[in-house]
C-alpha cells in the first residue's frame, strides 16, 4: 500500500506549479511527521494507563514505541530539511514548527535515555511514564505552531474535519502513503514490542512455554 502511494505520488501525480518536482518529498515527509506525533500521543495514553492503573504492558509498549517514534521523527526532520533546500534556500530554520518537532525528537531520545539509566526497571517504567506525560504538551504546540506564530513552514495542507487545500490528484496518493506508512509502523511496533516483552518477562513460565 505504501509502495502504491509512493509510485503514484512520485511518477503519476502532476508537478506542483510553484515548487516543481521537489514537492514529491511530501509523500514521505507528511506521513512521517503525522506518525511522529501520533506515536507520542499513543505513548502518552499508555503512560497514563501505567501511572493510574499500574498496567505493566503499557510501560512495555512505551519502551517499544519510543525508538520507532525517534526514527520516524528523524525521517520527518531529515526530509523537511532536504525539502527546504530547493524551496526555502536553507536546510534549517529555527521557526516554531521545526523547533517544536526537534524538541519532540529530543523527547523521544530523553525517554529512552531515562529508562536506560535505571537498573530498577519498575522505577524506570514509572519515571519514563511521568516524562512522557510531561512531554505531551509539545504535541498541540507542534500542531498549532503554524497558526500561533509566523513561521516559514506552510500551514497544514490536509485536514480531517475541513476541506483540504491540496488537489485530489496529489491528495489521494498522499492519503494512501499515510495509511501505508501507518501499517508499516504498526508491524514494526508489533515486532519491537514482541522482543521487548519476551526479554522483560523471560523468567516467567508463560515465556518458557511460548518459546
Amino acid at each position, binding site marked *: 500500500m505504501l509502495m502504491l502511494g*509512493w509510485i503514484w505520488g*512520485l*511518477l*503519476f*501525480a*502532476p*508537478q506542483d506549479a510553484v515548487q*516543481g*518536482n*521537489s514537492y*514529491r*518529498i511530501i509523500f*514521505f*515527509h507528511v506521513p*512521517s511527521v503525522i506518525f511522529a506525533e501520533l506515536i507520542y500521543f499513543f505513548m502518552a495514553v499508555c503512560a497514563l494507563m501505567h501511572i493510574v492503573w499500574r498496567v505493566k504492558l503499557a510501560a512495555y509498549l512505551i519502551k517499544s514505541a519510543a*525508538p*520507532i517514534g525517534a*526514527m520516524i521523527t*528523524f*525521517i520527518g526532520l*531529515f*526530509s523537511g530539511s*532536504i*525539502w527546504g*533546500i*530547493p524551496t526555502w534556500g536553507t536546510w534549517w530554520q529555527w521557526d516554531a514548527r521545526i523547533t517544536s518537532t526537534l524538541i519532540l525528537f529530543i523527547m523521544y531520545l530523553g525517554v529512552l535515555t531515562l529508562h536506560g539509566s535505571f537498573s530498577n526497571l519498575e522505577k524506570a517504567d514509572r519515571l519514563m511514564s511521568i516524562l512522557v506525560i510531561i512531554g505531551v504538551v509539545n504535541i498541540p504546540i507542534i500542531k498549532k505552531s503554524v497558526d500561533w506564530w509566523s513561521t516559514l513552514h506552510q500551514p497544514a495542507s490536509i485536514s480531517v474535519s475541513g476541506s483540504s487545500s491540496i488537489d485530489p*490528484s496529489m491528495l489521494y496518493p498522499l492519503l494512501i502513503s499515510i495509511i501505508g506508512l501507518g501499517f*508499516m509502523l504498526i508491524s*514494526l511496533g508489533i*515486532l*519491537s514490542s*514482541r*522482543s521487548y516483552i*519476551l*526479554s522483560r518477562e*523471560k523468567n516467567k513460565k508463560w*515465556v*518458557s512455554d511460548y*518459546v
Partner: protein
Amino acid sequence: MFNSEFKNFNEILDMSGHGIYVWSVYLVGISIIAISFLIAKKRIKTVQRKIKLNNASS
C-alpha cells in the same frame, strides 16, 4: 491522473533538477526503516535463543 509526468528513466531520476533532493530523501528514509525491521527481527531471535538456553540449563 494516471499519465506519467515523465517520458523516460532519465527524466524520472532528474525530476527537472530536483531528483537529488527527492531521491535522497526516499533512499535514506527507506534504508532507515529497513534497518529498523532487521534490528527488530534480530532482537527477537536473540531473545528467543537466550530463553531457550536458560530453559535448557535449568
